[in-house]
């Protein structure tokens, strides 16, 4: 029950884009059409679901103060938490390389359309952000980490697909003032959707 709660919370209330604004760079660059946006969203979700549990295990059994006590009592007061950034990013970067190879092999069309943005997933703030939030919030089990990862990923997917759909319409039908075209109007669309998403605040299952 608690896990479902965290899953739903991660999609709507703690939405990566609308509540924390993580992963904005690729969000702004790729949200020009729905298909590519959806592909990137799926890739991000996938990465979050994979890296969050791995980083959770790393955090619990290697990094936390006292996490190394399973090696013997003399390691009980070792605190490696200052290494967490470098280990998390190493996990994320290597997993990205793997996903890139898999996508290239199994879905060349997706690979072609995502192009240079796949390697950029490694530096997508949403993924490192997920791991850092996980560390900050003291999740209790691997399942919780998977649920949160899935939720954040789906929330990101939802956000980028929705904004891409709106951008398609705006580009086709609206008269946007010239200096605002492209990036400017996307900022405003995202802001308005962020305000709308605030209505989910306080929902509890």
């Amino acid at each position: 029950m608690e896990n479902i709660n965290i899953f739903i919370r991660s999609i709507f209330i703690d939405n990566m884009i609308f509540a924390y604004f993580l992963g904005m760079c690729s969000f702004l660059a790729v949200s020009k059409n729905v298909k590519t946006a959806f592909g990137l969203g799926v890739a991000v979700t996938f990465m979050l679901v994979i890296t969050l549990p791995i980083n959770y295990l790393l955090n619990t059994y290697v990094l936390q103060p006292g996490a190394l006590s399973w090696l013997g009592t003399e390691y009980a007061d070792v605190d490696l938490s200052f290494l967490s950034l470098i280990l998390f990013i190493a996990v994320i970067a290597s997993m990205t390389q793997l996903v890139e190879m898999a996508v290239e092999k199994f879905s060349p069309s997706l690979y072609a359309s995502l192009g240079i943005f796949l390697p950029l997933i490694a530096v997508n703030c949403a993924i490192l952000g997920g791991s850092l939030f996980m560390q900050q919030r003291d999740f209790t089990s691997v399942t919780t980490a998977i649920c949160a990862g899935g939720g954040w990923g789906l929330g990101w997917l939802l956000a980028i697909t929705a904004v891409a759909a709106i951008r398609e319409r705006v580009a086709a039908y609206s008269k946007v003032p010239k200096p605002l075209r492209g990036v400017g109007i996307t900022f405003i669309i995202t802001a308005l959707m962020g305000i709308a998403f605030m209505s989910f605040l306080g929902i509890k299952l």
Partner: protein
Amino acid sequence: MADKVNNKSVFFNPFSKNNPVIVQILGICSVLAVTAKLEPAIVMGLSVIAVLAFSNVIISLLRNTIPNSIRIIVQLVVVAGLVIIVSELLKAYAYAVSVQLSVFIGLIITNCILMGRLEAFAMANKPWPSFLDGIGNGIGYAIILVIVGFFRELLGSGTLFGFQIVPQAAYEAGYVNNGLMILPPMALIVVACIIWIHRSINKDLQED
């Protein structure tokens, strides 16, 4: 002489014409998240300037020895090392601010400005221009951070650096702080306004 001019444009271009935030659209996440108050915005700006300058120099020194296929991981490790130093320093000397910034100091690692500059500039240039490029882009980023932080704190809380700016008399006369400015979505709108003004002046940046 030509080299000198080149260095100068490398340093000053990111301030406005090629600003990393509003023209290259990089590193937006932290601009939005840390600018509710001016103080964390400035600390964040300084941290990014430091990390960007030094990682540019290190990568530029290593540029001929890094194998192309693993360059992203090498870049990330260099940046992560520098960010850890910054984050430990902040925890030691400015604990209150580092709590406010929470995960966003760690997220400097994935700040796209860093990867963008490392890939586009440091991998192809000598250390000294890379250093200037890092400082320039860092300052360009910090300028936007400070502008956004200034407006959000002034209009949202009536303060700057925590000091009361809007006089008490104004509140008694019925002035109310705009609570909306504190919320993260308003940062997007402030940045959109900056882009609007900037592109009205620099017409060549407008999209079709």
